[in-house]
């Protein structure tokens, strides 16, 4: 296929993405190159278009122009579920779990997805032992075993956030997009969350949106700065820290270290 | 004293026995005569319900849903006859005087509900007969259940022709009302004697309305070859707004609307004609409601409305005038029942009930087969004229009556408003009746 010309070490590439809400341009000529196995942070002030970029990459919005390549394949215009099956996961800025279901049932859904059990009408789910074992193992891994049967909606915020992240990770995606995983957390919880992310994303490619610069600088291998829908700069954390343009546009505006 | 005490029991016994024999004798000799009771005490809502060993009659009608008023009226009419008969002691059947007990069953005008209600009537309440019903789709269920459980079903208000055709006929079902075919033939014959030639058919969009429209076209072709049907529209049941239909009628230049509508559609149609400033008359079975006239602003509206029915209160017979008088005495000041003359269906159905119970009385038994044998070919002098039960399809043969509305009329509510003409036109049975359906002997 002629669209497999993207370098193999790039898991995700975007070429000239443009997106509009009505007349307003929210993404302008986005060029992203995500290296396989790296953690790539996207930072930028509120309204910079970060979440829109996520929505465009994951197929929720179709870009007005430009192309997206995932694992070297042109996936522009693919639906989210298809992308998810190809190995692209995401978590949400606002908790988006199955609030009426127990923590166990939540995770089990992701485990089913991981094991590609989609249209199975012929077996009792409870009798598929391997799924139950795997789910329970995952629950222990993320430290929610005690809340196994509690409805997700009744979890404490920190634990709910943890479940949110785990739902994305339990599917075992090759590339995962994390939308502010530590949003609204206390210092201590943030610290735990960073550890969890580090553990769960071992060896995977990650794109992460985060306001908390401590999180960003402790996790990210590379950073892209987004401003008014445009990419201001891309580089290693130290490069970004020293980039004058970024400082002017973004870092100077807020007290970086304390941004929630 | 002692001797008296000694003979008292046997004497009492003998006396009682004599009394019993006498009462039996009287009972056997006594037969009910229509319109004997004191009707001033008759209130359909507070009917005396006899219990014990009674003749059980199931009344299959809608008592809930949109047509509930049809059920209430039937209950009132059947109650009238039952009240009359019960106050005369009841009917002598199988050697015993029995009173009549009416058991209501609600159809909600839905076949399914009707079927269940009928099963309850037949299997649980163990009725001897059942009577009904509004809606031909319900009557079909009645036919089937009558055949299945071998109970006599008296159909006095479902008019569709096909109910008694070869496919749907069974020997347990009797129909005393007319059919859409008979009504249409009566009307068409009447129109052949009038100069009206441009007709507009405006009926309800379901089987009864469509049947009537089709029958009317056929009958007009037969009796009034020069007639022209300038338009034909079927409107939904319980229509809200007749105005667009009437504008269409107006544009067609019709002289007369022919409509199968019953209340509330018939009322709405008349009111809409009034509102639209039209005066076009309507012909059909239900355009004679005496309450209508008072609510029309233009006093010319409704004049010339032509009503066809198997009974009309302005039919001049001795029996009918007596009936009219009794009925009018009872209801002229009644605020709840605003019908003060037994107009078309009201009087007709009462007559049909009398006929049915008369047949039972003459049969002297509740045995289904004996009643059927007696009723087939039976003739009965009802209020307006002779009724004969045709053997081939169990359809009552009767004269039809046509009347136009005039003003002033003594048959109106006020005595000088809109109402029937002085006397109805009688159209003999041999003109209106269609022959036995194909496939039935």
């Amino acid at each position, binding site marked *: 296929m002629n669209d497999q010309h993207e370098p193999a070490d790039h898991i995700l590439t975007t070429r000239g993405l443009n997106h509009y809400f009505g007349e307003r341009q929210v993404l302008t000529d986005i060029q992203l190159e995500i290296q396989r196995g790296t953690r790539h942070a996207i930072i930028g002030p509120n309204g910079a278009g970060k979440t829109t970029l996520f929505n465009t990459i994951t197929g929720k919005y179709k870009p007005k122009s430009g192309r997206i390549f995932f694992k070297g394949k042109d996936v522009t215009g693919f*639906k989210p579920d298809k992308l998810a099956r190809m190995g692209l*996961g995401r978590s949400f800025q606002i908790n988006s779990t199955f609030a009426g279901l127990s923590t166990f049932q939540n995770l089990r859904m992701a485990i089913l997805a991981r094991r590609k059990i989609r249209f199975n009408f012929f077996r009792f789910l409870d009798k598929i032992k391997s799924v139950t074992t795997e789910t329970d193992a995952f629950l222990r891994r993320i430290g929610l075993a005690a809340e196994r049967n509690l409805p997700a*909606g009744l979890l404490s915020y920190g634990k709910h956030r943890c479940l949110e992240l785990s739902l994305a990770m339990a599917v075992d995606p090759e590339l995962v997009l994390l939308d502010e995983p530590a949003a609204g957390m206390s210092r201590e919880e943030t610290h735990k969350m960073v550890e969890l992310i580090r553990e769960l994303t071992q060896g995977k490619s990650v794109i992460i949106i985060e306001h908390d610069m401590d999180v960003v600088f402790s996790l990210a291998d590379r950073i892209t700065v987004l401003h008014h829908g445009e990419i201001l700069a891309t580089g290693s954390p130290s490069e970004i820290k020293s980039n004058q343009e970024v400082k002017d546009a973004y870092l100077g505006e807020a007290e970086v270290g304390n941004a929630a | 004293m002692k001797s008296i005490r000694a003979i008292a029991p046997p004497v009492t016994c003998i006396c009682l026995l004599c009394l019993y024999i006498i009462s039996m004798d009287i009972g056997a000799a006594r037969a009910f005569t229509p319109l004997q009771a004191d009707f001033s005490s008759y209130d359909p809502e507070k009917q005396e319900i006899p219990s014990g060993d009674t003749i059980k009659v199931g009344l299959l009608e809608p008592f*809930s849903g949109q047509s509930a008023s049809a059920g209430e009226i039937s209950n009132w009419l059947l109650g009238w006859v039952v009240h009359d008969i019960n106050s005369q002691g009841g009917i002598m059947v199988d050697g015993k005087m029995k009173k009549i007990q009416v058991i209501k069953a609600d159809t909600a005008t839905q*076949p399914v509900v009707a079927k269940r209600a009928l099963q309850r009537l037949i299997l649980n309440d163990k009725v001897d007969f059942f009577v009904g019903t509004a809606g031909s*789709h319900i009557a*079909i269920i009645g036919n089937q259940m009558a055949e299945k459980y071998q109970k006599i079903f008296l159909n006095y208000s479902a008019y569709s022709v096909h109910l008694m055709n070869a496919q749907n006929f069974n020997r347990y079902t009797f129909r005393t009302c007319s059919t859409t075919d008979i009504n249409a033939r009566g009307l068409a014959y009447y129109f052949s004697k009038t100069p009206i030639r441009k007709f507009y058919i405006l009926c309800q969009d379901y*089987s009864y309305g469509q049947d009537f429209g089709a029958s009317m076209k056929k009958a007009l072709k037969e009796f009034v070859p020069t007639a022209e049907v300038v338009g034909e529209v079927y409107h939904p049941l319980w229509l809200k707004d007749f105005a667009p239909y009437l504008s269409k009628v107006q544009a067609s230049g019709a002289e007369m609307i022919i409509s199968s509508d019953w209340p509330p559609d018939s009322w709405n149609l008349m009111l809409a004609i009034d509102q639209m400033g039209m005066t076009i008359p309507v012909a059909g079975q239900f355009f004679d409601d005496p309450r209508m006239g008072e609510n029309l602003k233009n006093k010319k509206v409704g004049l010339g409305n032509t009503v066809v029915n198997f009974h009309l209160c302005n039919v001049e017979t001795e029996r009918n005038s007596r009936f009219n008088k009794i009925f009018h005495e009872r209801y002229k000041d009644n605020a709840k029942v605003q019908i003060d003359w037994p107009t078309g269906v009201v009087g007709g159905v009462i007559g049909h009930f009398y006929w049915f119970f008369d047949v039972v009385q003459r049969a002297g038994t509740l045995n289904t087969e004996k009643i059927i044998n007696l009723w087939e070919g039976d003739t009965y002098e009802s209020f307006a004229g002779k009724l004969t039960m045709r053997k081939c399809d169990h359809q009552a043969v009767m004269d039809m009556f046509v009347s136009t509305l005039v003003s002033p009329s003594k048959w109106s509510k006020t005595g000088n408003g809109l109402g029937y003409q002085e006397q109805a036109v009688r159209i003999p049975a041999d003109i209106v009746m269609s022959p036995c359906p194909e496939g039935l002997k």
Partner: protein
Amino acid sequence: MKRQFGKWCAWAMILGGLYMAPRVLGVFELNVLLGTAIFALFSLSLNLLLSFTGLLSFGHAMFFAAGAYGTVLVLTRLSGFPLLPLIGIGAAAAIGLALLLSPLLVRVSGHAFAMLTMAFSQIMYATVMKLSHITGGNDGISGFAIPSVSIPVVGVVDMALEQNFYYFAISILGLSAWVMWFFTRTPFGSIMVGIRDNPERVTYLGFSVPLSKAIILCVSAGFAGVAGSIYALFQNMVSVDGVLGPLSSFSPLINCFIGGLGTFIGPIFGTGIGTILLELMSAHPEQAQLVFSLVLIAIVLFLPGGVIMLYWKANTRWMAVRQNIQNRFFKRRIYE
């Protein structure tokens, strides 16, 4: 172990009761029981959409009607068609209709889904009325005989006999209900519940929501079709008012609701209670609907989890369950 034993006892009692019913009950009561069972299955099939997938349908009766008309039309036109395939035809007709409509229906959810299903069922109503030379209009089709079944060892079973038909119908209905229950317990069943709670997340987990919805719709329609098919045979007729009338789509909804939303068994209870209520009121048909509506209002106001809550209230698990229910239906918007 003890709970297992209790469960088996309950099942044995229910099955024994159903088996003994024709010997104990009169024909009329038997018919009421069977009618209730049919509507329970219909309500269960709606519940599959409502409680498990979060799709509110105002037109579920069209699948019921498709089953009924499918069966009757084949039965009256092809003589000698055996009984069991007839019910298959009913299910197939309903599934066919669902397949036809699913490309449109799966695109929407929430109120739009409700309105769209209502629109389709109204179109079907009008069409059935218009095609009266085929469907019999509002007179419907009636008076056909149910074909007999010949079973190799037992011989020919005459289905015109109420008892025989009862055993036949109740086994089909029971089997269908069990299959539906099984369906909700499969991996796909858990995805179904996921779609109710959060369709977006289900998508991002890699499940195709439209495809899943289409499958659920077909399954639900299929069982509604089975119910409709048996209903037509049981009533010996099919008519527009009976299967497509204004309340035909609402009454299973009300049944689900009275029984208890979010549960599998609820609709069965709801249908039963509705039937009992109407039977109790049979002497006063004018007031029956009024009483029914008052009961409905009272349940909404005072027992929002449905009648099944009464059982749960007595149960020790009550607290956890209530929280669960509250979560599902009070605190969150469940339908988007």
